[in-house]
């Protein structure tokens, strides 16, 4: 049971010893420079409540409780006694603020700085103390108020609770912000401490106090009672608080283990798949098809899917045609070689009764000729036959091609 607390306690003390330099620096100078330490260290100490950040933009400071511990243990007379009473706290803060302003005006900067740190410390202790008090009041009302048996006891309790709440309210009302604002004047630091910090702490405290009051009103009329189980729970928590080293003895070592602690472990694991079972084949296939397939390659198949089958056929048809043309052109060239004489493309076209478009045929011949390797090309010569254009001078219309051997 104490395992959790013990672990937390050990880690706290270890952190304190590991980061002792940080702690001492915070103690002497009031705040620490975050840049000097790693975020990990700082977060660790924040979680352990060794240091805290009074407000969002301010620097990290040592927790007041820890500071008090250090003050007492080190018997350091230089450090001030922080007052528990809000009223006197406020008065001393105001006095210190006046000292600070005077020192600043007289040009005694070192003194002024120490005054300022003093004021800072007092202000933050005050806010912490206020918060603690209100929290304490709230938890008492929530957890312990109302559990009385007789009407008289209830009345007494109500009076007590109400008086304590009003006392806290009175203390809070001592915050006269206009006065504080006047005192701080135009000094930025003072203004921040006295006006901004105190005001936000005041706001938080009043909020929580109003929650406490609401709860009090709610419970004024009720007689609360711990039903059996809650008593058990509360008692257990209390017991652990008082005896942190408590642990129940290990009942599993007794010869007669009580039934409550005799809980059998998990024996069953998931069954395996039988791939030889014909009956399950269908369902197994379904399961397999639902398994997500991780496709790591870019899927290019979509492009091909969009192309319709017709296109494929067309390609084939075109290919056929082209290859037919090509083979005919080859045959034409061969014929020229065989015959050894010049031949025009159109003559050959007529003799062979080719069924291509004549113009296409001509272009193919030209293309075929120019496509020949250099060596082969040198064997042939190409001449064009045509007439000048009747309408546009300078244009020569080709009507036929003549291929000959060189």
């Amino acid at each position: 049971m104490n395992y959790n607390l013990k672990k937390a306690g050990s880690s706290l003390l270890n952190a304190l010893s590991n980061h002792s330099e940080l702690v001492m620096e915070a103690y002497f100078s009031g705040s620490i420079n975050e840049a000097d330490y790693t975020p990990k260290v700082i977060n660790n100490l924040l979680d352990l409540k060794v240091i805290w950040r009074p407000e969002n933009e301010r620097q990290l400071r040592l927790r007041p409780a820890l500071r008090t511990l250090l003050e007492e243990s080190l018997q350091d007379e230089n450090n001030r006694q922080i007052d528990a009473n809000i009223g006197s706290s406020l008065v001393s803060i105001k006095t210190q603020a006046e000292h600070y302003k005077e020192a600043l005006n007289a040009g005694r900067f070192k003194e002024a700085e120490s005054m300022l740190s003093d004021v800072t410390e007092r202000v933050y202790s005050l806010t912490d103390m206020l918060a603690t008090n209100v929290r304490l009041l709230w938890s008492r009302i929530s957890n312990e108020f109302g559990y009385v048996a007789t009407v008289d006891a209830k009345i007494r309790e109500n009076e007590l609770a109400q008086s304590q709440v009003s006392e806290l309210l009175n203390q809070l009302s001592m915050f006269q912000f206009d006065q504080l604002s006047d005192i701080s004047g135009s000094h930025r630091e003072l203004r921040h401490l006295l006006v901004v910090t105190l005001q936000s702490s005041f706001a938080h405290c009043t909020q929580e106090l109003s929650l406490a009051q609401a709860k009090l009103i709610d419970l004024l009329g009720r007689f609360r009672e711990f039903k059996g189980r809650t008593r058990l729970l509360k008692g257990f928590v209390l017991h652990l608080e008082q005896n942190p080293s408590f642990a129940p003895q290990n009942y599993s070592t007794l010869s007669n283990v009580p039934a409550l602690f005799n809980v059998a472990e998990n024996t069953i694991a998931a069954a395996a798949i039988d791939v030889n079972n014909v009956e399950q084949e269908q369902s197994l296939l379904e399961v397999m098809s639902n398994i997500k397939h991780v496709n790591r390659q870019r899927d290019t198949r979509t492009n091909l899917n969009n192309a319709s089958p017709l296109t494929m056929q067309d390609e084939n048809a075109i290919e056929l045609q082209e290859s037919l043309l090509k083979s005919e052109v080859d045959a034409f060239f061969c014929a020229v070689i065989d015959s050894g004489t010049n031949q025009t493309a159109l003559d050959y076209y007529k003799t062979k009764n080719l069924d291509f478009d004549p113009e296409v045929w001509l272009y193919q011949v030209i293309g075929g000729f120019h496509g020949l390797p250099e060596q082969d090309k040198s064997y042939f010569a190409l001449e064009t036959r045509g007439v000048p254009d009747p309408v546009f001078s300078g244009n020569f219309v080709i009507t036929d091609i003549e291929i000959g051997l060189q």
Partner: protein
Amino acid sequence: MISQKGIVLEKLLSGHFICETTDEDSYRFLKTSAGRMEVEAHLAVLNRQLTHAAEEQVFFASYQTIGETERVKLGKQFEDVSNHLLPLIEWLLLVQESLNNDLSLSQGMNLRLNELQTVIEDTPAYAEQLNKISRYALFGSKAAELDAQLKLVFKRLVELGYLIKPNQDKQIYTVTGKIDYLFDVLKFIDETEQLSLAKKAEDAMSQSDLI
């Protein structure tokens, strides 16, 4: 297809606690003496027997004869249980206070996550308490936000069998019989170690002073 008996056996052997909330049919099956006898016959083969807790509200399997191997397993289990006690109890108290109930949680109670979250968010004391609870090793939360911590705590409790989430879409959790089992464990420890916890709580109440 598996029969009701089969379902019951499988649950018991998986270490589950059967109560009316987690599985009503299995619970009914075990309430009949015939059902109990059938199940016990099968469990006996595996050196187990049927045990009940919390006035027969929850059933689970336990070892019949305890040998060395069983002792080791039970020892480990016991360690878990005792380490988990404090976080679970603090959580129970927190929920009880937030919902303003004088009654502690018991089987069948419904917890609405958003209702709980609203109350805890509004009250700084509860938020700090939740923060503390979620940092225990049992829950092991690293989050700083309240709703993440709350969700993790509830998720873990469902895993451990203390709560169930009957409807996956709605954030409503039902308390199972395992909580009653937990209370039984507490009572047992109280009596055996003679802590007189109830008396302690009462004394604390009568001595209280607000500030």
